[in-house]
């Protein structure tokens, strides 16, 4: 019986070697991903034991941790109610973390690569490790103006400094008070989370970066850019502008907003943008073809997700469109979808002579001893259009505000360039009201995009010009006044 016993002893040995391999796999190979799993409260506990760095806006902490006498050691608290919720997200024992609390976690906990030397020093000197402060690019006045402008309406506002990509305002409504989720009372935190996650308008999700909408007529900026970049069009090129445009291959037609004409037929490209003429842009889309528009859209940032460092979901211009789809997409309907920050980027690129800067929220990461450990440098994301095209688009957008669909955004003494949008949502609900703009037109300091879902309080009467443009105006004034 010794032969099978020896074989069985080998089997036993193999079993233990397999076990050793299994534990090595979990504790060494997989350890990083397991430690970073948001459900791993152990990581949270460890983090809670150390002072987490604050999130700072213009020198004031909007999220900060203070020592408390419970198992966690530190309590995270937030100022401003729902004002900063789309930026900070929340940091909770029970519910994990989101937005900057998630994306900048390494810096806030002091675990980031850039804090390596700080950590080594802490170990050597026996100091308790402290998280670094994350200083944002936000402008409190702009943020407040955006929040006030949206009021009770569901929607989002994003403001960007065109020359750098700094995000000056980022608001999503409805928002939430992160304190309710950050409480160490696990029951209360859990209830707050389930209440918020089932609430109307999904407050926990940032509309500004995580929600895509049909961009409506604001997308005509992209179509116009594609036309000008093709070299075959100038702002003065005549376009047909029928009351209704028959779409090829179908019995469907495209009409204009309100059902009328566009004031002239044919109409120049500049005037078509100024009055937001659907039929001429649909025809322009058919003439350009979906590939040209898609290429242009992608140069503005469509079809690609990115981080600021919070996650921005990709805006979409779909592949392989047939003629009716191309016509609809050229006016921002059908299957085109955009995040509010994406439409702000379109304006920002036009404002910055066609050069699209990478948007960013975090200006500096500063260690607990106020030493700057990381500073974001502005970075060119892509060249969206040529300077000539950008100038032409700017002039056309100035026309929209001066004498077109966006007059509500006029500011005395400041030339504003903008574009309205009123996006049909397909169901029986009122259309989304859009406005994207930048100012001052000759030396832009801010580009902004506003969406008010389903027309907000104006409902079916809403247009981008009427509902969204005044909010954009307030944000621009706040930036220029600061």
């Amino acid at each position: 019986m010794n032969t099978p016993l020896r074989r069985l002893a080998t089997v036993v040995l193999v079993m233990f070697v397999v076990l050793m391999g299994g534990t090595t796999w979990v504790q060494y190979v997989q350890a990083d991903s397991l430690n970073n799993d948001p459900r791993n409260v152990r990581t949270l506990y460890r983090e809670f034991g150390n002072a987490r760095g604050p999130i700072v806006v213009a020198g004031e902490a909007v999220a900060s941790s203070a020592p408390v006498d419970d198992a966690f050691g530190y309590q995270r608290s937030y100022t401003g109610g729902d004002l900063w919720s789309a930026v900070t997200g929340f940091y909770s024992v029970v519910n994990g973390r989101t937005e900057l609390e998630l994306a900048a976690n390494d810096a806030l906990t002091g675990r980031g690569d850039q804090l390596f030397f700080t950590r080594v020093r802490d170990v050597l000197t026996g100091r308790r490790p402290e998280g670094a402060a994350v200083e944002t690019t936000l402008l409190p006045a702009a943020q407040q103006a955006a929040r006030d402008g949206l009021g009770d309406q569901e929607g989002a506002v994003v403001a960007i400094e065109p020359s750098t990509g700094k995000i000056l305002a980022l608001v999503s409504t409805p928002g939430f008070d992160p304190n309710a989720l950050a409480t160490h009372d696990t029951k209360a935190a859990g209830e707050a989370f389930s209440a918020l996650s089932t609430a109307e308008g999904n407050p926990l999700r940032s509309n500004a970066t995580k929600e895509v909408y049909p961009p409506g007529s604001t997308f005509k900026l992209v179509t116009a850019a594609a036309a000008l970049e093709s070299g075959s069009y100038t702002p003065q090129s005549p376009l047909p502008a029928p009351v209704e445009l028959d779409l090829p291959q179908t019995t469907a037609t495209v009409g204009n907003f309100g059902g009328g004409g566009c004031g002239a037929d044919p109409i120049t490209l500049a005037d078509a943008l100024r009055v937001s003429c659907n039929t001429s842009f649909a025809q322009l889309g058919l003439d350009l073809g979906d590939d040209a528009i898609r290429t242009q859209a992608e140069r503005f940032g469509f079809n690609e997700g990115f981080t600021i460092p919070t996650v921005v979901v990709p805006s979409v211009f779909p592949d392989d469109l047939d003629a009716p789809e191309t016509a609809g997409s050229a006016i921002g309907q059908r299957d085109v979808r955009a995040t509010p920050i994406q439409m702000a980027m379109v304006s920002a690129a036009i404002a910055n002579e066609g050069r699209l800067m990478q948007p960013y929220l975090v200006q500096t990461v500063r260690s607990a001893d106020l030493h700057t450990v990381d500073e974001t440098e502005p970075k060119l994301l892509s060249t969206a259009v040529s300077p000539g095209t950008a100038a032409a688009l700017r002039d056309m957008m100035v026309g929209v505000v001066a004498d077109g669909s966006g007059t509500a955004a006029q500011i005395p003494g400041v030339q504003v360039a903008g574009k309205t949008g009123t996006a049909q949502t397909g169901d029986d609900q009122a259309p989304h009201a859009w406005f994207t703009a930048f100012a001052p037109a000759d030396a832009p300091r801010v580009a902004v995009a506003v969406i008010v879902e389903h027309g907000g309080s104006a409902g079916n009467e809403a247009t981008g010009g009427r509902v969204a443009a005044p909010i954009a105006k307030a944000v621009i004034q706040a930036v220029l006044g600061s």
Partner: protein
Amino acid sequence: MATVQPHQVRAGRGVELGLLVLALAIAVAGYALVGLGIDGSVPADVIGYAAGLTGLAVALHLVLRWRAPYADPVILPVAVALNGVGLAMIYRIDIAYEAREKAAGFAERQLGWTAISVVLAALVLVLLRDHRTLRRYTYTAMIVALGLVVLPLVPGIGQSINGAQIWVRVGGVGMQPAEFAKIALAVFFAGYLVTHRDTLALAGPKVLGLQLPRPRDLGPILIVWGVSLAVLVLERDLGTSLLLFGLFVAMLYIATERLSWVVIGLLLFVGGALVAATAFPHVGARFDAWLHPFDQEIFDRFPGGSGQLVRGLFGLANGGLFGTGWGSGRPDLVPYAESDFIVASLGEELGLTGLLALLLCYTILTERGMRTAIGVRDGFGKLLAGGLAFVVAFQTFVVVGGVTRLIPLTGLTTPFLAYGGSSLVANWVIVALLLRISDEARRPAPVVRAVLTPEVGTPVASAARANGGGGTAGPTGGDQPTERIEGLS
């Protein structure tokens, strides 16, 4: 045969004492470090604790010197070390539970169970002078084993905890009879197989190079298969079912050397498990949790979700290579950190390094058991030692593999480490049996008796001497067939 070489007389009791000092140092240091890690001071009762553990270990050591002087010198120290590390971790988890105002006090009870276990192990060594005595109780053992297996199903005393009907509670004391059933079954299998191994091994048709058994010899294996399936279905205990069946297949293989038995056994078990997985949501959920533990929906599901498993993995990952150190992790965040998931707790605080060291301890323990089986001369002893060593190894594999997600998670306890009186007592009894058999295996051939045999100088006597065990087998009588079979093989 090597067993008659005179230099092998070294009993190894001195080595054992030295290793015991090391094992006790590990156990007591673990206990002291828990205190240091949590509140910066050594626990006040560390001297008393050290004295108690040392007393138990040394007492057993003295019993070995008295009753089994040639027993394997490594088995006892390894068991003491594992038991001690487990005690320190349970004490550490107690402190964490107390801080969270959860039910605690596991460490004192486990210490009590340790004392009871060591006393029982000593009793086994004292009362059982020769392991072959157990062969007389082959069928008694079978009845006891079956009784123990079905005991949790008896209304009134059986208890269902977390969906598994594997507990018995009598007079306030809970126990898991299956832990003892595995010993009784090992005795039964050893006794049954040593008698029937030839028919099982040699008779029957050959198909595709596999020597198949005769249909009528399939009876016992089908009975055991049925019992383990019944455990699975009626008691919903995948782990015990796997354990009992694995034990049987392993012992069948030792007895017959026929791979066909292993193949048939595995096919039967896999078939049964698959049927059970589809027919019983309780078992199916285990497979789901194993395959897709990180799905939010499965993670959140309770009971039957992967929450515990994944939290255990989080704990292991938190430990990393070197662990957080005694008292510095959060093992209490994993449900059942003191029993089913003590491996995750140890992995968190002692790290991969510590866990590999513990696994090496198990490897040494079970390989020493295997060596004992190879060394002992009678077939019954070979089967019993091999089966017992294998069952410890296999149980460790099933538990640790479950916690590290190599295999689906089952509700078995980690031998020696985990909280639980039944498991601790059963495993110490296994250690006592292995020590008893190893004493027989390592005892030099008693030349004197051979000389006293009337047939001195005849070929028969020299055969008995060469056979090694012949001299000691003589007085016990009833084991002659075993010896003959052993002599032939």
